[in-house]
């Protein structure tokens, strides 16, 4: 089934990671910036699975499992922080959350 060279998957992973970085830099909405982080994590997961496949090792898949768990924890805490920011500042625009910026 898998006759597609592993480099194809890696290049796709690089493209998705790059698009995640672009979204992270461009987007002004704090929730969308969180989604850009999730996109980058997904791109890294694809590279993990591709490498696990190439070497016939299961360790890569276990790491993908852990990345997904950490992403779930990060989303829960991060979205709680987003809700707190919205309640205190009534905005989701990161340019209006600039108390620590001089």
């Amino acid at each position, binding site marked *: 089934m*898998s006759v597609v*060279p592993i480099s194809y998957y890696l290049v796709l992973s690089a493209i998705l990671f790059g698009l995640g970085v672009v979204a992270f830099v461009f987007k002004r909405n704090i929730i969308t910036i969180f989604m850009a982080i999730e996109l980058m994590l997904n791109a890294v997961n694809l590279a993990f699975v591709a490498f696990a496949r190439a070497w016939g090792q*299961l360790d890569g898949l276990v790491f*993908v499992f852990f990345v997904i768990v950490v992403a*779930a924890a990060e989303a829960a805490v991060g979205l709680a922080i987003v809700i707190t920011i919205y309640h205190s500042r009534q905005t989701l625009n990161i340019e209006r959350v600039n108390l620590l910026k001089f």
Partner: protein
Amino acid sequence: MTLPFILFFVFALISIAGAVLLIVAREPIHSALSLILVMMALAMLYLMLGAEFIAAVQIIVYAGAIMVLFVFVIMLLNAGVEERTDWSKMAKYAGLPVAVLLLLELAHWMSHSLIGETPANGAGSANVMVSTRDLSMQLFQKYLFPFEATSILILIAILGALVLAKKDE
């Protein structure tokens, strides 16, 4: 062009289109839905790579649980169209060349690395599908301690989310 190649390019194009949609969409809910599209396409690619358990977890946990959490918060906060300011234009001019440079460097390095020449069913993978049994044996024997540590992490995350989201007395 054989079937795996066609499938790979179809799902790769779907995932890249979803990522681009995430960037150009003005409404956060559209970004969230396009991110779900990316995750679904990636799950199909995991299936092609023989990782059927990871594909299922990707759909159930990522597209199911995490993205529902995102959509729920978007609905809860009634997030509308994001506003553009002068700063976002500056980010565009400074960020785009840097991001494109990073992209090119990553793609170049990954396609020219040593592993890049090996086919996907290369060394050591005799059976086509990685069995979930082998994966769980690995997870509960070699990686038992990290597995237990992640449960503590989840517990701490639940507590943190509760403390952050509760109303101030």
